[in-house]
């Protein structure tokens, strides 16, 4: 995460532009943009634990689902909008904390597999907890905003704010400690970094972002059901982060745009869309481990470092 000064104003401008795009494009494009932006919130959160912290979490989809259901249940119970948002963030964050505690000593690919299973468990609970969650048919979601314009403002602002927040976190003490533990967790511990605490904090923050994104998608869709939140969602969010560029500010936005936007824009049937995503992802991971933004940065660095041609 680099240059400080221009970033926040730039993101504010971006937020405004995104709102305009959402509000004034036709239904087809508007839907795609909304999905991309909501995903950006979730994937930006993922960037904290996976990008900064280096922990390959495949369960962001689970917190996404938890947030969606928690906020919807709150609204159905008659709670006001701010409380519903709080419910989404808090319940997801607590779940993130608990999972973080459970996996405190798990690393690398076992961590990845464990988070995958957590995603499955969330989906199972959502599907089977019919009395609370409405079972496989799901729930309908009351619109908590005064108008769709307000919802659009919320979505655009959230995407920009999410990126700003993650940028701030990246440059804060927490961010530096997380990147230290990403580089070498045991060594960081011996430098005085409280790695256990930092990891839990990272998990909690990431989950909170996921929960908030869940609230947004619930509002935008008007209805939620468990198959919106199956375990592949968590995986594909990780794909979005990796493709766009983990630990890069715009990585989540770019990745979400590619994953969500490209298949929808090309009007591919969902199977072919995911097929394309899968192929692109495998190729990119093999060729460009730092994602597309990372690859672009390396290329730029190499071009800058090239000596002047001989005369």
């Amino acid at each position: 995460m680099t240059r400080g000064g221009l970033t926040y104003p730039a993101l504010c401008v971006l937020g405004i532009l995104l709102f305009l795009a959402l509000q004034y494009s036709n239904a087809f494009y508007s839907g795609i943009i909304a999905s991309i932006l909501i995903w950006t919130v979730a994937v930006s959160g993922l960037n904290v634990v996976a990008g900064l912290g280096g922990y390959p979490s495949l369960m962001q989809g689970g917190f996404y689902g938890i947030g969606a259901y928690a906020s919807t249940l709150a609204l159905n119970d008659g709670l006001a909008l701010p409380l519903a948002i709080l419910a989404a963030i808090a319940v997801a964050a607590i779940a993130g904390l608990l999972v973080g505690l459970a996996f405190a000593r798990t690393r690398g690919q076992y961590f990845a597999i464990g988070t995958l299973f957590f995603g499955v468990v969330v989906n199972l609970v959502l599907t089977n907890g019919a009395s609370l969650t409405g079972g496989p048919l799901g729930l309908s979601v009351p619109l908590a905003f005064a108008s769709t314009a307000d919802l659009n403002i919320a979505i655009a602002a959230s995407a920009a704010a999410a990126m700003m927040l993650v940028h701030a976190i990246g440059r804060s003490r927490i961010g530096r400690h997380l990147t230290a533990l990403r580089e070498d967790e045991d060594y960081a511990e011996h430098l005085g970094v409280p790695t256990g605490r930092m990891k839990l904090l990272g998990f909690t923050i990431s989950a909170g972002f996921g929960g908030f994104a869940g609230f947004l998608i619930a509002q935008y869709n008007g209805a939620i059901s468990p198959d919106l939140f199956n375990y592949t969602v968590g995986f594909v969010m990780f794909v979005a982060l990796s493709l766009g560029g983990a630990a890069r500010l715009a990585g989540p936005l770019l990745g979400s745009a590619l994953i969500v936007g490209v298949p929808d824009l090309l009007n591919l049937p969902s199977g072919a869309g995911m097929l394309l995503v899968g192929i692109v992802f495998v190729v990119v991971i093999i060729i460009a481990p730092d994602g597309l933004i990372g690859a672009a940065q390396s290329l730029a660095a190499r071009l800058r470092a090239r000596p002047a041609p001989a005369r």
Partner: protein
Amino acid sequence: MILQALSNGIVLGALFALLGAGLTLVYGVMDIPNFAQAGIVTIGAYLMVALAQGAQLPFFLAVLIAVAATAALSVATERLAYRFVRTRPLAAPVVALGLLLVLDNSALEIWGGDHISLSPPYAASVLQLGPITVPGVGVAVILIAAAALAALWALLRHTKMGRAIRAVSQNPEAAAIIGIDLERQYINAFLISGVLAGVTALAYAPTYAVFPYMTDSVILNGFVAVIIGGLGNVWGAAIAGLALGLVESFGAVYLSAAYQTLIGFAVLLAVIAVRPGGLFTGGARRIA
């Protein structure tokens, strides 16, 4: 009722054992969670349906061709993808999932999303053992799994290839020093794993329906078996798979059918949280 749960559990367990064996073979040589195995089983199942029921080939021939295809597909995943992430343990599981996405969605695009069924010649028969009814396909699962695991054991213990694979799994550097071609053994491991995938398709498809995501839940159970049994430990995976099948079957009867898979995952989460390397790793990773 207990006996029925028992017999269901054995069938389920045999399936998990087969999947686990294929997964753990790859783990042993390459420390990679081969999620793509699920996709290969699915493609194998579809091929069997297409050949036996679509093209009307004799069932046995259809199975042979499908198994050859899954073996080739498995090797292809190694040559085209896994090979490049061997040294990057974080990239491996996500590449594996990416491959699974590709395979599942290829099946979706080629054959559509409907649930179809594979009807082998023995589908109609039923075995009656006193109060228990075991459908023909269930018996087949047990027989196929037993035969496959026995063959695998014989292969690993008594053939040159098997010994080479085990050597690589235990100590790649030492194996290389005594002249074993590591690349070759990686390919062999995937080849055998691919054959197992085809065999799993034969066992699995008639018992349940064939559709693009048919294996997604069982593959996770396969991983539970692998992790409990110890990475690279074929017998561990087989026994753990069987045990898991029984636990889930009884759980379905006495607790809740809906939460059947939840039990397996609860077990796995517990194992991963406490001992990420598995319960029975015992130092160096072993195959059989």
